[in-house]
Structure formats: structure tokens, C-alpha cells
């Protein structure tokens, strides 16, 4: 346990020097001296240490039972340790050690949580289930390949022993926790039905992770050598377990979302955080300044010789200066400016003030129309977050590129967007619902080709998808612990679970396009910006 000794002496990031940390062997070194690859174990699972996210293990006072579980696990020489501050109540560690995979997950939650006892029951059964499993797990082949050391140990047979789970429940103060340790491979040789038929571990994982469905009882889904058909409650409970392991609250871990509900919740939160999103956007400064100014004349006042500004309901008389909107309604310049800074519509008739009559129709449409109702599985194809546009917006002549840009800026400001966000992601048209204008004012044909491009991968999606680390770059590096959870099961997932396959396929489609700013990216931008780690993530690894 050389790694234990290194805990006491972390390198200190001096000025201008970056420390790189190896997740495989817990080595640390200065970036400029040794580069990004681990000089000790040649692993590439390394991370640059940032003050706000230091992956290096901290010496902790673990409850003794926990610590025992830790050492009893007979782990490979190296533990990934993840100290993401966002996930204080969950730990998940995985490592592709020599010839095996080591996974450790610990979740702690308030003791009064009512879910605890079913969880315990479920985990007990899960432990039993995994205890029954054995043999090679093809799904993890590439995982082993990630660790160069594997090849350095000649004669070693990979995956000859079943995966082991060590579960420990501990109680400390107001919090009780359950720790799961899963080990596989040659590092663990104690017992185990080695001779049993090798079940497809990935497929079983796919079954477990799949959202609860009547098929949970379908015996055909169980591979030979696997346990008897799961009771329905097991499947359902396990989905919850996974969700709660990933994040007790939201089934969200880092920048990944695992359930439709979690995604919905995020979208709802975003919409609630931006309650004006349905209302008309503010008018641009230009538009406000360019309003026609007039002195009230007899014609405007009508027979009574006086009228009132409907905003401040003050009487106005002939000769007073007013601002006249395109719809011919007039107000005190001051009053209407205050309103237009929030919404670009007439305070009386709600006609948009910008653009000609043809545009005003579009504008009303754009600002008030909800995203078109579509079948849920199609939501990304036509939602405002989408890059594809089912209906190309009509061209809007008479608007310069600059005007469009300014208008977009105003909209971004309204909803808290930073300009840099949009600039660093060229071609993003994710604000379509708010802004009927598009900076590029795409022609219809261009737009059609875009949608065609976007759609064609969805056809490919019908082919058996073969997600790999290459097509899911954002799961590499920091998140590969998560990938390991699903990683081996990824192919199994996609075969056995249409639901998950849908979202995974979508995700990888975005990546295939080289656009990490698809719908999920958009959400991720939101989520990570607040924690300030969005940029860091890109730099890691």
C-alpha cells in the first residue's frame, strides 16, 4: 500500500506549476516536468489538480467498519479517489487495475430516510446476485485495455474470478451509510464458482439498470447461469438504487443524467428559474431610441382635448411630447421606455415594436408560441433546445446582421446568458424559442440540409449502436468511474433497454457531430457554469 504513504505528502501547487495526479497509482508530479502521462505506471488516467477539485485522497477518519471494508477488499494497487465538492454525500471509485476492475461506491444519507430498509434488502439481494456471477466479462475488455500495465504481466489470465461485492453499512452520528465494494479479476481469488457458465455481466447490468418495466419478469432476459427471474420489485428497486447511488436527489452525477425524470426535473428547474421565458423579450436600445417622438395634436387627443398615458394614467394635453409606437399607440416616452426595457410589445395592444408588420407576426409567434407539442420521444427534435429545426423559420429581410446580434444579446442578457457562452459555441441556435431571429439568418435550403444532417444519425441509431469511449468523449477522464458502471454494460444497455438506448444514442449523435453542445450539453452548460467547473472539465485529461 504504497499509496497510503503518499497521502501524507501531497505536492503543493507552486506558482505557475500544475500538479498532475494519477488515478491509477495515486502518483503525483509536476506537469511541466513529466507531462500528463504517469511516469510510474504509464497510466493515462490522470488529472490536473485544481484548487477547487483536488482528486487526491485526503486522510479521513473513517469509521472502523468502513476502513476494514476498504482494506479487506484486497484492492489492486491504486484507488481512484474523487473528491468532487458537489457530491459530498456519495463516493464512487473505480479502477482498472491489473487484470481486473475495482469499483467502490459509498452513499450516505440521513438516517431517517424511509428508503433505507428496502435498499438494504435490495442490496443484499444484489450482493447475492453478483456473488453468483463469475467468469469473464467481455464488456470490460476495453476497460482492461486502458491500463497499460495489464499487458506487462505476462501469463496472467484475465477475469478468471467472479466479481466480488463487499458491502458495509456503518452508522456515524446523524448519518448512516452503506458502502459497496466491487472487485473483479485476478486480484481476488478467494472461492467463487469458477466453473459456472459465464453470464453476460453486461447484459445483466443492463437489465438491472433499465427502468422498471413489465419485462423485469421476463425470463428470456436472463442469461444462462444468471439468477432466477428478478421479481418486479427488484428491478424497480434497483433502478432507484442506481439513481440514489449516482445522486440521491436527482439521479444526476456530475454532468450526466440517468433518468428521464431527472432530465425533466432539470428542464423544469431551468424554466422556473427563468419565469419570463414565455413573455416577450425586451426591446433593443436602438428600437427604443428610434421610436417616433411627437407632440400631441388635436387628432391624437380626440374631441375631449385631453387624454392620458395609459401607463402612468396621467392626463396629457395638447403639446405634450409622446413616443409613438408602430401601432400608433402613444405614451410618455419615459413610461414606455420602462416597459419596453422588459418587453418589446405595445402596452395596450401587445404588437411588437420592432420590425415591420410581417415580422411582427413572426415575433408574436416566436415570443408566445409554446414549443410545438410533439411526442415525448421526439422532444429533442423540435424542442427549443434542439439544433435541428423541423420548420425552417421564414427569412426576415430588412435586418442587418448587427441588429440581429444586438437583439440576441439583449435576449441573452435577459435570461442571464453570458455573451461568451454563445461566442465560444458558434452555430448554436438554442435560443430559438425566445428569439425568432437567427444570427446567421439561414436560408431555407441551408436549414433543410442542416436538419437532414441532424436526422440522418437517428437512422443510424437503429443499427446496433456500439458506443465506445471514442464516441463519448465527455465520459472519458474524470467520469470514467461512471463509465465503468455503465461502461461494460453500455453495449448491454443499448441492447436490452430501448429507453436508455434512446438517450444514449442521442448523446452519441451529438458527439458524432462534433458538437458537445447538444441538448445535454446545453443543460450541462447551465449546471456546470454555476459550479465554475465547466471549463476545467475540458482541460482535464
Amino acid at each position, binding site marked *: 500500500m504504497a499509496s497510503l504513504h503518499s497521502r501524507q505528502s501531497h505536492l503543493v501547487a507552486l506558482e505557475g506549476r500544475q500538479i498532475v495526479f494519477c488515478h491509477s497509482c495515486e502518483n503525483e508530479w509536476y506537469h511541466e516536468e513529466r507531462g500528463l502521462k504517469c511516469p510510474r505506471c504509464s497510466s493515462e488516467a490522470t488529472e490536473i489538480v485544481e484548487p477547487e477539485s483536488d482528486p487526491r485522497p485526503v486522510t479521513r477518519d473513517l469509521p472502523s467498519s468502513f476502513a476494514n471494508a476498504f482494506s479487506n477488499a484486497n484492492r489492486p494497487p491504486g484507488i481512484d479517489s474523487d473528491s468532487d465538492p458537489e457530491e459530498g454525500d456519495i463516493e464512487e471509485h473505480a479502477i482498472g487495475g491489473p487484470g481486473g476492475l475495482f469499483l467502490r461506491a459509498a452513499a450516505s444519507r440521513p438516517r431517517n430516510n424511509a428508503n433505507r430498509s428496502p435498499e438494504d434488502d435490495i442490496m443484499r439481494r444484489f450482493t447475492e446476485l453478483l456473488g453468483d456471477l463469475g467468469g469473464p466479462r467481455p464488456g470490460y475488455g476495453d476497460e482492461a485495455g486502458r491500463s497499460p500495465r495489464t499487458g506487462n504481466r505476462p501469463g496472467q489470465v484475465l477475469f478468471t474470478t467472479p466479481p466480488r461485492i463487499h458491502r458495509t453499512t456503518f452508522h456515524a452520528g446523524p448519518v448512516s451509510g452503506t458502502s459497496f465494494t466491487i472487485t473483479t479479476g485476478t486480484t481476488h481469488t478467494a472461492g467463487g464458482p469458477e466453473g459456472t457458465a459465464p453470464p453476460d455481466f453486461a447484459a445483466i447490468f443492463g437489465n438491472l439498470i433499465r427502468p422498471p418495466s413489465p419485462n423485469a419478469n421476463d425470463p428470456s432476459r436472463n442469461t444462462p447461469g444468471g439468477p432466477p427471474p428478478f421479481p418486479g420489485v427488484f428491478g424497480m428497486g434497483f433502478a432507484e438504487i442506481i439513481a440514489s447511488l449516482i445522486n440521491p436527489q436527482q439521479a444526476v452525477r456530475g454532468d450526466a443524467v440517468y433518468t428521464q425524470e431527472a432530465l425533466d426535473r432539470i428542464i423544469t428547474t431551468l424554466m422556473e428559474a427563468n419565469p*419570463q421565458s414565455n413573455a416577450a423579450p425586451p426591446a433593443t436600445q436602438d428600437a427604443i431610441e428610434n421610436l417616433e417622438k411627437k407632440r400631441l395634436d388635436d387628432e391624437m387627443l380626440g374631441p375631449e382635448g385631453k387624454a392620458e398615458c395609459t401607463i402612468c*394614467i396621467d392626463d396629457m394635453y395638447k403639446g405634450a411630447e409622446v413616443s409613438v409606437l408602430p401601432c400608433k399607440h402613444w405614451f410618455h416616452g419615459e413610461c414606455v421606455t420602462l416597459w419596453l426595457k422588459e418587453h418589446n410589445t405595445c402596452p395596450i395592444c401587445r404588437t411588437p415594436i420592432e420590425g415591420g408588420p410581417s415580422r411582427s407576426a413572426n415575433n408574436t409567434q416566436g415570443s408566445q408560441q409554446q414549443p410545438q407539442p410533439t411526442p415525448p420521444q421526439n422532444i429533442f427534435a423540435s424542442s427549443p433546445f434542439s439544433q435541428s429545426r423541423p420548420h425552417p423559420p421564414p427569412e426576415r429581410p430588412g435586418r442587418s446582421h448587427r441588429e440581429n446580434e444586438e437583439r440576441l444579446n439583449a435576449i441573452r442578457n435577459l435570461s442571464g446568458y453570458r455573451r461568451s457562452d454563445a461566442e465560444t459555441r458558434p452555430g448554436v441556435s438554442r435560443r430559438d424559442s425566445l428569439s425568432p431571429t437567427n444570427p446567421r439568418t439561414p436560408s431555407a435550403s441551408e436549414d433543410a440540409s442542416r436538419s437532414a444532417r441532424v436526422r440522418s444519425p437517428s437512422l443510424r441509431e437503429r443499427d446496433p449502436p456500439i458506443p465506445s469511449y471514442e464516441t463519448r468523449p465527455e465520459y472519458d477522464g474524470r467520469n470514467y468511474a461512471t463509465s465503468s458502471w455503465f461502461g461494460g454494460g453500455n453495449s448491454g444497455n443499448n441492447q436490452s433497454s430501448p429507453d436508455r438506448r434512446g438517450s444514449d444514442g442521442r448523446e452519441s449523435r451529438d458527439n458524432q457531430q462534433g458538437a458537445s453542445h447538444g441538448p445535454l450539453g446545453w443543460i450541462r452548460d447551465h449546471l456546470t457554469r454555476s459550479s465554475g467547473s465547466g471549463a476545467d472539465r475540458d482541460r482535464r485529461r
Partner: protein
Amino acid sequence: MASQKRISKELADCSASPPAGMSIALASDSDVHKWHITLDGPASSAYAGGRFGLVVTLPTDYPFKPPVVTFATRIYHPNVTNDAGGAICLGLLKAEQWKPSTRILSVLEAVRALLVEPNPDDPLESRIADEFRQSRAEFDKNARAYVNRYAVGPVTFPSESQNPSNNKNNNNNTSSTATPTGGKAQGS
């Protein structure tokens, strides 16, 4: 402040010629942003005979932001939350539909119209909305039961403090789950 001026004017207008069946007062003389309205249940509705308290809260940037109108008296209505909060679903008051040219007078009239004609298509209480659509007689009966239970006698408004005690029937439970009839909806 512009909003103060407009509010004072509107208050004067409303007090001088209040909408049918309403009386208007300020919650406190020092604050024109909170109005207490007493509304008689329209004779043509299931709420006839009841007296309902309405609280109109005007934001500081009124009229650029819509006023907030809530029932201080419990009412059985598809578009009013069936709890102590008494939130009203009124399109006129939604941020995306609000226009600064709308006056409080017309808001109050819209609330009154909502009592005469509930809008079950845009409900806050979907259960009540379903009942309203499917068995009107049952709805009327329940609405009248609520009137008899909550809306007789003088109207009490929530005090200026944070205490959300609304009514003589305050049951110490501010959450929406306190409704005896349940059926809290997700609708607007």
C-alpha cells in the same frame, strides 16, 4: 415614484366607483401596495351569499409587473388553489400576458367574472375542474358547502405579519396538503 402615483389614482377611482359587489380598503394606510377587497359572491353563481376576501399586492414596479391577487377566504373553485394561499389562475395576471394598460379595476372585474364562470380548461385544481365539467350539480353543492363553511360573516384578512392565518378556520397548516378535498393540481 411613478407607481405610487398611478396606484393612488387607481385607488381613488376604485374607491369612488367600486366594481359591483366589492368594497376596497388599504391593508394599512401607509402602504398603497396592498389592498384588501371584500367581494360578495355573484348572485348568479354558486358563491352567492358568500363574502370573500381578496388581497391585491402591487409590486413596486407596478404597472410594469402584474399585481398579485389572492383569495384570503377559502373558496371551492377550479382556478383557485384550495388552500390557505388562495392563489388565482388568471391569464390577465400572468407575466407573459400582463399589459401595463390593464388596471386593477379590470383585474377585479376579471376575478369576479371568474366566480360567475370558472375556467376548467386552465385549472389550478384539476380535480375540481373535472368535477365542474362532469358533474356540475356536485360541484355546486361543494362550492356552496365551502361558502357556508368559510365565507359567511365578516371577512378576515391575513395580518400584516408573516402569519399566514387566513381565516377563522385557520388550521395551522399552511401547506396545500391541508385541503380536506385534496386534489392539488400541477396546472397553471
